[in-house]
C-alpha cells in the first residue's frame, strides 16, 4: 500500500508544481490569482490526504482555515483589480496598466495574417 500512498502524494505534488509554473509565468495578475486559488486548494487537499492516510485528525482544523483564506484572498484581489478599471473614454480600454498579454498575442497574429 506504500505505493498507493506515494502515488497520491506524487500526483498532488506534481499538480502543485505545475500550478507554481503558472504562478511564475503569469502573464496577467488574474492568472496568478487563479493559480494561487488552485494552489491553496491543492495544499488543503494534501493536508486532507495526509490526515486520512495516517489516520491523524489533528490537521483537520487547518483545512477550514486554509479554505477560508483561499476565498478571502481571491475575492479581495479580484475586487482590487476591478477597482483599477479606469475607463478612459473612447473604446473602453482601461488605462494605467499594460495591454493584456492575450490581446497582444491575438493582435500580433492578426498583423502577421495581413
Amino acid at each position: 500500500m506504500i505505493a498507493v500512498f506515494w502515488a497520491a502524494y506524487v500526483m498532488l505534488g506534481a499538480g502543485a508544481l505545475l500550478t507554481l509554473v503558472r504562478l511564475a509565468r503569469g502573464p496577467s495578475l488574474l492568472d496568478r490569482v487563479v493559480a494561487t486559488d488552485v494552489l491553496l486548494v491543492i495544499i488543503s487537499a494534501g493536508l486532507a490526504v495526509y490526515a486520512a492516510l495516517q489516520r491523524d485528525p489533528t490537521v483537520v482544523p487547518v483545512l477550514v482555515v486554509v479554505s477560508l483564506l483561499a476565498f478571502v484572498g481571491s475575492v479581495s484581489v479580484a475586487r482590487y483589480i476591478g477597482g483599477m478599471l479606469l475607463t478612459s473614454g473612447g473604446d473602453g480600454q482601461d488605462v494605467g496598466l499594460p495591454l493584456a498579454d492575450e490581446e497582444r498575442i491575438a493582435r500580433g497574429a492578426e498583423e502577421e495574417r495581413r
Partner: protein
Amino acid sequence: MSDVDSVRDVVAVVLLLAGAFLCLTAGLGLVRFHDVLTRMHAGTKPQVLGILLIMIGGAIRLEGWSATWMLLLVAVFQMLTAPVSAHMISRVAYRRRHVRRDLLLVDELRTGEAADRLYRGDEPADAPPEEPATALEESRRDEGTLPPA
C-alpha cells in the same frame, strides 16, 4: 496506523487517489490552457469535485464525528465560495480583456458598438447618475451620437 485492511479502507483510498488525480489535472490545465477563463475551467476541478472526493475519503478513514463534521464544513464552504470567487474573477477578466475573444464561439456579454459610456458596467465605486435621463443624453452628445444641443 497507516494500514489498509478492510473494504472501507479500500474505498477511501480509491476516493483519495481520484481526488489527487483531479489536482494533477488542474495543474496540467493551468499550464496548457491559453486564457483566464479556460484556466479557471481547469482550476475548478479540484475545487469542487476533488475536494468532495478527498473529504469523503477522509471521513471514511478518520473515525470520530468531530473530524467528519469539520470535513463536511470544508466541503460545504468550498461549494458555497467557489462560484462566488469564480464569478468575480471571470467578470474582471472579461472587462480587462484577458479573454481571447477570437476563440469564443458565443459572446453573450458583447454589447453593441454604440453602447454608451454611462451604463457600460458596474465597476466598484461606480454610482448611478443622479439624473439618469439628462446624464445619458449628455454622454451621447459627448460621443457624438446625438447632435449638440
